[in-house]
């Protein structure tokens, strides 16, 4: 294929599209919709991935959580319900005896609590009673102020570290530090605020509020609640060892007989990956379905209009053939026209998606940082390539028909 033929084909394609602007635009509709789905799907999936990474990091990739409940299992909840609570004695014994991990600590939590500040209040809070070591886990990363100290914990000080939503709701001006709030009628001083960490996967995490474990037990008591144990393995390589030690030790403490299943669960960040993966698969499934459907419609439309274009230009094909255009040159002209048509569709789709995504993120997800407010650049590349391939597929039959015309028949066409 000669350079001169290729540039000539490009000119031909441009001329053809330019002289039929409205028709071209309408024809690309199917492709536009298809590319819109490609871009939106890619954008959603990258949002999912970003949310997942964030969640996994907040939980900690080297963390294990021993719990009565299994995070991922909804269907066996009756089994978990019937398990005995993990009481304070068991949790303390576990933390004292465990050797493999860097650190292990008991955590007590109260769901659905209410926090008051003057005459305002926020409910649906999960109050977490944790030891001072909790600051070593990703969950204890305070951005504003500080976490409570070992002595504050020991003396059961009335200090609290609040989650992003709590601070943001009660103190929208960002002056939460030093304020006095009430939890169950007890006064607490806010000494720290945790940054926004929640995504749609764990939106409740920003409603957490941490107080010293001793203080917690003083307010809510020790009985009637199941504690969790947070285990920080230290690094990901140590995770497997820490897991097997935790299972063995916990079975011993909980008196699980050989052959009897564990009456506790070991939860970890990887469980979210599995959950997200199924979400990913369904996004893919729906996406691929919609994309193929619209491309199918789009290809039929473009093939059809390309046949029209070939017929309209029969005489021109005849002239070009008479002057020495080979089959390949004629093919290329129509393939380029079809590809350009689809590429225009991709550009339209891209402009549309950019607007929609920017608006949606601004209006509905303004404080989320996992959904990007622009179309990721690699999606632009994907969309362009896909559109050109679709164009070539759609243009193949008409281009072949044009290329195979006998010069004399094409010239005689009126």
């Amino acid at each position, binding site marked *: 294929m000669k350079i001169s033929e290729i540039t000539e084909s490009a000119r031909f394609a441009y*001329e053809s599209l330019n002289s039929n602007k409205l028709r071209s635009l309408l024809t690309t509709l199917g492709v536009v919709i298809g590319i819109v789905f490609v871009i939106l799907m890619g954008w959603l999936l990258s949002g999912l991935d970003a949310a997942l990474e964030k969640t996994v990091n907040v939980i900690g990739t080297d963390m294990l959580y021993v719990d009565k409940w299994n995070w991922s299992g909804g269907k066996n909840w009756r089994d978990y319900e019937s398990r005995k609570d993990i009481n304070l004695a068991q949790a303390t014994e576990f933390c004292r005896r465990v050797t493999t991990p860097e650190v292990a600590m008991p955590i007590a939590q109260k769901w659905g609590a209410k926090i008051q500040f003057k005459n305002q209040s926020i409910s649906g809070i999960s109050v977490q009673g944790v030891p001072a070591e909790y600051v070593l886990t990703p969950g204890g990363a305070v951005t504003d102020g500080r976490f409570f100290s070992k002595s504050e914990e020991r003396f059961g000080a009335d200090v609290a570290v609040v989650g992003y939503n709590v601070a943001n709701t009660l103190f929208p001006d960002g002056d939460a530090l030093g304020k006095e709030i009430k939890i169950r009628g007890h006064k607490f001083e806010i000494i720290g605020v945790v940054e926004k960490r929640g995504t749609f996967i764990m939106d409740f995490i920003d409603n957490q509020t941490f107080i010293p474990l001793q203080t917690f037990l003083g307010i809510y008591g020790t009985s009637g609640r199941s504690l969790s144990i947070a285990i920080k393995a230290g690094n990901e390589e140590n995770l497997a060892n820490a897991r097997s030690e935790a299972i063995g030790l916990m079975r011993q403490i909980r008196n699980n007989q050989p052959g009897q299943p564990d009456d506790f669960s070991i939860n970890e960040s990887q469980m979210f990956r599995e959950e997200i993966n199924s979400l990913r698969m369904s996004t893919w499934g729906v996406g691929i379905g919609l994309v193929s459907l619209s491309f199918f419609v789009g290809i039929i439309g473009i093939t059809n209009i390309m046949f029209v274009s070939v017929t309209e230009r029969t005489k021109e094909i005849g*002239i070009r053939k*008479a002057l020495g255009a080979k089959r390949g040159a004629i093919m290329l002209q129509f393939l380029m026209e079809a590809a350009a048509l689809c590429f225009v569709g991709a550009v339209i789709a891209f402009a549309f998606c950019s607007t929609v995504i920017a608006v949606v993120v601004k209006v509905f997800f303004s404080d989320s940082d996992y959904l990007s407010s622009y179309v990721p650049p690699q999606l632009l590349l994907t969309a362009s390539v896909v559109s050109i391939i679709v164009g070539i597929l759609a243009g193949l039959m008409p281009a072949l028909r044009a290329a195979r015309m006998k010069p004399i028949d094409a010239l005689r066409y009126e």
Partner: protein
Amino acid sequence: MAAEQPIIHIEHIAKVYTMGGEKLYALRDVSLDISPNEYVAIMGPSGSGKSTLMNILGCLDTPSSGIYQFNGLDVRSMSDNELAEIRNKEIGFVFQTFNLLARASSVKNVELPLVYSGVKRAERRERAEQVMHSVGLGDRMEHKPNELSGGQRQRVAIARALITNPAIILADEPTGNLDSKTGKDIMRLFYNLWQSGNTIILVTHEEDIARHARRIIRIRDGCVESDLPNEENEASYSEAI
């Protein structure tokens, strides 16, 4: 006579169309040799097969039977792309209806054969402008066909036929759509081309036009009726035009 190898050699060419089960012979049996620097006129009544013959000679169409050798090569065994190459490099075709690309300027139209032989843009443009000058259209480069008169269009078409320096120029009633004055101008152009060494075959209805050629082939019902040198002497008709 150790004649030069003919450019065109056809033997017992026939072209049959089957219409509604009936066979229609556009050409029955035509044999011809055309040598370099001949100037041939093909004449005959309407429907006698002149255009059919020209289209076959120009490799735009293929015969149903017979032998066709172009410069000694068997045309009938050539592929589509090989035929395209012959049309591109060896044949300059001039049509009665000009057959210019409506959307392209005249100089672009003239360039087009070079596009398909892969000549670079700058050289293409230079050669096209040169040929446009030689047909007297140096001042009409950027005009589109619909901005030109019929005679000017045919000159553009002739320039396009000339640009590749083809072995032979085929013209099917090149003056058929022109008035007699403009037709004469075009014929002068062909005469000059022949004088400078080109080989020309043209189809015409008019004896006046055929007089310019050095050999006249008459066709009737798809057969060669007569094939004679033009007796008129060269000097007298070159005066006439």
